[in-house]
């Protein structure tokens, strides 16, 4: 019964106009972020384009003197790797969290 399913926190909800038919069978992947702070040149590409709004800019500076991204909402990350692909400094990447790995669904295309 769809009504019985637990709801994700409001912050992570996608803007569906109806519930996808396979919503109860699809396991949403979850990612763990790795940020190499001192490679960052503060472009903000990752913060701006993360579809789940996971990242924010730090108030602090790295050794080069740039603000760098911080994880604001780790649970929301779906391991889409967009931040990793957009980052022009090779400073952020995302790995699938352990417990999800055997569940498949890693290939996002």
């Amino acid at each position: 019964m769809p009504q019985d399913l637990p709801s994700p926190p409001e912050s992570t909800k996608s803007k569906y106009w109806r519930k996808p038919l396979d919503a109860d069978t699809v396991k949403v992947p979850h990612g763990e972020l790795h940020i190499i702070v001192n490679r960052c040149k503060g472009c903000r590409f990752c913060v701006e384009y993360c579809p789940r709004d996971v990242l924010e800019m730090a108030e602090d500076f790295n050794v080069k003197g740039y603000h760098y991204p911080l994880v604001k909402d780790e649970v929301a990350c779906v391991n889409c790797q967009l931040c990793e692909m957009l980052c022009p400094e090779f400073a952020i990447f995302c790995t699938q969290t352990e417990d999800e790995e055997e569940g498949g669904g890693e290939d996002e295309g």
Partner: protein
Amino acid sequence: MTEETTVTEETQDVAHPMDDLLRMDRMPHIWCPTCGLGTVVTALALALGKSGIPLDDIAVVSGIGCTGRVAGYIKVDSFHTTHGRAIPFATGLHLANPKLKVIVVSGDGDLIAIGGNHFIHAARRNVDITVICVNNFIYAMTGGQVAPTTPLTANASTMPYGNFEPPFNIPHLADSCGAAYVARWSSLHVRRMTTAFAEAIATPGFSLVEVVTPCSTLYARRNRLGTGLDLLKFYHDNCEIQHGADTRSLNIDFQGKITLGKFIERPRPTFLDRLDNWYGQVFGDKYEPYVGDRK
């Protein structure tokens, strides 16, 4: 300070997936903050991984310019040639060893201006190389001079009152010279760009992918367009994907709509196909194909 060091150390146990494909001893790269070139390198590395070609069978060739640095950062056999000569160098590499996958990564100034003749003739002969032309609308490394790809009215250091010369439409140029594969993406469209690179590498013959990329320091700042991030936002709002569009319609106006997509995919005999076929007919059995075990 201490906090930063902890974060860095923490991530040291898992290496960045790109570290194996890049010459990390040369990092940080020289590109400015919010320049789009790093993203293009990631897409190329991902496409090379996807293609399944052993890295020893790949060669990357660049000319001069900001994009010209790509050859120095990517960890395959790579060559940084003189200005405009990336394509003839790549042609030579390909002919010396047709089993190599030769990929040219260079900028609009290098490939379309100084190397313009090489570009049209490689496309005409359909030499089996892949050309990735990063178009940032300007000569970046040398100081923001006008390029033959600078949109009309855009400001450049040698066009301080705005550019009055009509620019090249790169996909149309490649198409009309006979390229086998022609696509255009922006550096924001990372996944599509990666797919296009993989397709271009797999297509026999001359393949061109133009990548519209932000130059924050010289193009964006001179034209008061903000940073590279502002240009990505502009691409997000103003790019239209239209596969198979007529390449004559692909002009880029200053801050106008940019049409992206895969425009041409038409395999036709490559330079070596024609060579073998022709001399095979002329000399009959006496002719040995250029390289026996090719493909």
